[in-house]
């Protein structure tokens, strides 16, 4: 069986080391927080200026001064710290985050990521912190379905959408397989409801087994 979004998030969560400092991108990656085990000591960073972010508050506890990067209300945990945007991005760009988890339109075999712009001529572009996250964290995990609605693979020899970052992705967690991007190529770490051979046939990207 292929993985649900929650199962993909759980797969990512399992690979986050205890005590790691982690940024979860807007959208599906935020689901990862729900799958971190109690006592993991994982510290969540939100680029609008908070370390050790907690879960969504109850409706009564919503504070308009306390949001995540998706502008959703969040909470602070004991040991939190606040800082301004320049400091927050210095933290990201300086390589201090252990892991960031991003959604993507496409990832290339060389670890390029495209996740901010479809390239459609009438689209209003918006990049936010995606480019900083892509190049800043020690490990960059991507979480996406492997195939687009038209059946084409999002793991590609070379991205056709405008790039977010070059050669920066380490792992790709999808509904049907988990991949590691290595200097020697793309390694299949796990498959779900499909086989290595099926993947190898369907993707334009050379694969190898773990």
């Amino acid at each position, binding site marked *: 069986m292929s993985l649900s979004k929650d199962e993909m998030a759980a797969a990512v969560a399992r690979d986050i080391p205890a005590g790691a400092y982690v940024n979860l991108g807007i959208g599906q990656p935020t689901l990862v927080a729900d799958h971190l085990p109690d006592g993991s000591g994982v510290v969540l960073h939100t680029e609008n200026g908070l370390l050790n972010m907690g879960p969504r508050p109850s409706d009564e506890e919503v504070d308009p*001064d306390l*949001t995540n990067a998706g502008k959703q209300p969040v909470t602070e945990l004991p040991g939190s710290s*606040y800082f301004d*945007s320049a400091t927050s991005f210095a933290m990201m*760009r300086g390589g201090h985050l252990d892991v960031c988890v991003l959604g993507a339109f496409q990832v290339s075999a060389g670890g390029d990521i495209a996740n901010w712009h479809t390239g459609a001529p009438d689209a209003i572009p918006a*990049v936010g912190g995606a480019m*900083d996250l892509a*190049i800043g964290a020690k490990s960059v995990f991507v979480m996406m379905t492997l195939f687009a609605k038209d059946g084409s693979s999002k793991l590609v020899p070379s991205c056709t959408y405008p790039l977010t970052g070059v050669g920066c992705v380490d792992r790709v967690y999808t509904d049907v397989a988990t991949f590691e991007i290595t200097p020697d190529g793309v390694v299949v770490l796990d498959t779900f409801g499909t086989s290595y051979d099926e993947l190898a046939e369907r993707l334009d990207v050379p694969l190898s087994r773990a």
Partner: protein
Amino acid sequence: MRVCDTAAEAVDGIEDGSTVLVGGFGMAGMPVQLIDALIDQGATDLTVVSNNAGNGDTGLAALLAKGRVRKVVCSFPRQADSWVFDGLYRDGKVELELVPQGNLAERMRAAGAGIGAFFSPTGVGTPLAEGKETREIDGRTYVLELPIKGDVALIGAHLADRMGNLVYRKTARNFGPVMATAATTTIVQVREVVETGELDPEAIVTPSIYVDRVVAV
């Protein structure tokens, strides 16, 4: 430093054609009353530097809707409630310079810190670095980024003392501190102005040297 009685007094003298840095991340930290006062004040042909390009119909969105903004420099204009910007942009009525959020913050920091330019790894190899100088340093490729200096900064903070020292509250801090350093004139709306000496000197986030006008709203 002047403690102003009204937001109108605080925004007095902002000139047509100014570059205005506007704080806030979405609505958190957005200086809504200062923007409303700027709308009334009438300055036009503005370049606005802000993380977003307005939400709903208030604040920055209202300023845009009035046709006062020639150009927006920001990282994330498109949002669920950014219909004002979206319409103006599609109609070619506002110019957009899209900057990755970290480069946006760091370019303003550079302006405030007297740095002439800096090499950033963010955006290398992407459309947002096209046409910019790049350089390999110690095995990594960087793109040269220039400072963004404001004529005016409009920011929201939590408390000010009468000298202009500021503290913020939670993630409403965001772009306020860096914008305060990067503008010729920094104008701040706060929830309360307290007596000098009431803020803990160890916990002040924006020292008074960066602040020109404060108004409690």
